[in-house]
């Protein structure tokens, strides 16, 4: 039953593919507010993560490497914490020492829009603001799949 629920969540998140990415504005770790639609024209990788999801701890350094490699080519990486406790999430993000912006979503609205269930969930948005790729969960080495997708979207 749990597996069925997880599968359903993954399928729901994947149903976003081909549709406009729901817009959001969130406060960042540095105190600045960021709005997704302001990155139109760039390829955006949104990583929804949570402190309690062990895979997030593995995924964030991998995403940091992707950010450093492809930033100059037009990639924007946004880390969105779905933790209810923004202070503790901020401490966690600081300890992870990632260079991409970390945002805090403490309400349910954005998570609902992206059909979030399993953490982490990563969404790739193309230059036109359309969701092109969704990855639910993370295993070491999954970032290779991101690289192929990112390269393809950056070429468009």
């Amino acid at each position, binding site marked *: 039953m749990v597996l069925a629920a997880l599968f359903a969540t993954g399928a729901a998140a994947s149903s976003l593919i081909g549709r406009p990415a729901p817009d959001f*504005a*969130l*406060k960042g770790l540095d105190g*600045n*507010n*960021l*709005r997704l639609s*302001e990155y139109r024209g760039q390829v955006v990788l949104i990583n929804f993560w949570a402190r309690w999801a062990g895979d997030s701890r593995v995924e964030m350094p991998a995403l940091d490497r992707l950010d450093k490699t492809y930033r100059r080519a037009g990639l924007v990486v946004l880390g969105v914490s779905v933790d209810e406790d923004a202070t503790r999430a901020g401490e966690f993000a600081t300890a992870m020492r990632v260079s991409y912006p970390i945002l805090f979503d403490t309400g349910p609205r954005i998570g609902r829009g992206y059909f979030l269930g399993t953490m982490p969930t990563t969404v790739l948005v193309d230059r036109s603001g359309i969701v092109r790729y969704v990855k639910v969960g993370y295993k070491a080495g999954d970032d290779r799949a991101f690289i192929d997708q990112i390269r393809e979207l950056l070429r468009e």
Partner: protein
Amino acid sequence: MNPHRRPVSIATRAGILVWLWAAAGIALAAPPAAQPAPDAPPADFKTLDQEVQGVKKDVIELNEDLFVLEENLLFPANTQVAVYLSMDVGTFFALDSVTVKIDDKEVANYLYTAREVKALLKGGVQRIYLGNQKVGKHEIVAFFIGKGPHGIDYRRGAALTFDKGIGAKYLELKITDRVPKHQPEFVIKDWE
């Protein structure tokens, strides 16, 4: 040699040759057509481009009409209330977010990015809320959150009781600088 190919007689070949020669002769004898300038696009392309531009214009106009129609249907004038936000100077206040409540019910909550604040400071006006309210008296309360003078956290409210008549109601949230007191000022203006 292809075995399926039909043999062609010498007479047929000669006929084809004569026909081709005659056609070439006619083409060469014809007066040369006026050559277009090397850089000028052909007339057909020009017409096609004009047609495409015309279609684009029609689509934009149609989209505008649909937008107005949709707004009129969703928010008819007899119930329509629109709330706008403007900012003047902004020396004593760095805007972060605004929450709007009408009759104690939250109707808008907006987080501003640096780019949006910049646009407001350049004279931009944002429609923060568009909705329906019954005819009669209502109370609007707006909370402005940001950084005040000397970078301290600032949260101020402004309230106004307004009378919703049968026409559309326009309200404006204004953030201005009160220079003598070195403080920001928050006002709700009722555009009668």
